[in-house]
């Protein structure tokens, strides 16, 4: 019987609020899986996650939740930014 290689887990660095954590991912999984893993690592409560997005190191391209991670441009060893899409205050 031929041997089959287990799906490899790759690694990226994710920065949130000045802290960097290593997060493992599979290049074929959806972006939302990597996003949820990053939120879990930084202990962001589930009800708060909708305000955040995961961005490539260009700080502009968001890792699409509905697309395989590798198709969003995530590469092993790269640095991603987990940040709010909007920061605002006001009485209205």
């Amino acid at each position, binding site marked *: 019987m031929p041997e089959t290689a287990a799906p490899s887990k790759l690694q990226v660095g994710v920065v949130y609020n000045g802290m960097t954590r290593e997060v493992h991912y599979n290049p074929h999984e959806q972006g939302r899986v990597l996003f949820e893993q990053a939120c879990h690592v930084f202990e962001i409560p589930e009800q708060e996650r909708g305000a955040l997005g995961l961005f490539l190191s260009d700080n502009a391209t968001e890792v699409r939740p509905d697309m395989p991670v590798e198709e969003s441009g995530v590469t092993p060893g790269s640095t991603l930014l987990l940040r709010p899409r909007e*920061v605002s205050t006001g009485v209205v």
Partner: protein
Amino acid sequence: MITVAPGMLEHSFEHLRRCGDARRECIVVWTGPCGRVDYVDEVVHPVHRASAVHCEVDPDWVGRFWLDLARRQRTARAQVHTHPGSAFHSDRDDAYPLIHTAGYVSLVVPKFATGPASLADVFAAVRRDGGGWEYCDPRATVRIGNVS
């Protein structure tokens, strides 16, 4: 409770007054070294646009801020912003803070920070463990002083 280095509150009010000019909201962020989780010793003035009733931080600035904090091994612990009238946490203040993790402090200063630089009329909220905010006595949330 977070401990705020002496002079930080006054420095923050100066930023809020000068930038807001008694006619626009403004925001500053307090940061501290990673090794001292309850201590802040730096005031950061984000890139933002504002009106009398609204203030929005540049999202691109946030990403650059994350990387700058990482390089200097610091984190954001609190934000301080102004309101035109009374101090309270609006729905927007609840929904769109800089930080979404437990322990983060949000202070709201009334009347565009034109009053004395003190905690007397400030509104305080702290991020809860499971999300959302707990509204607190500002003097029980912020302590002015040094840490050993």
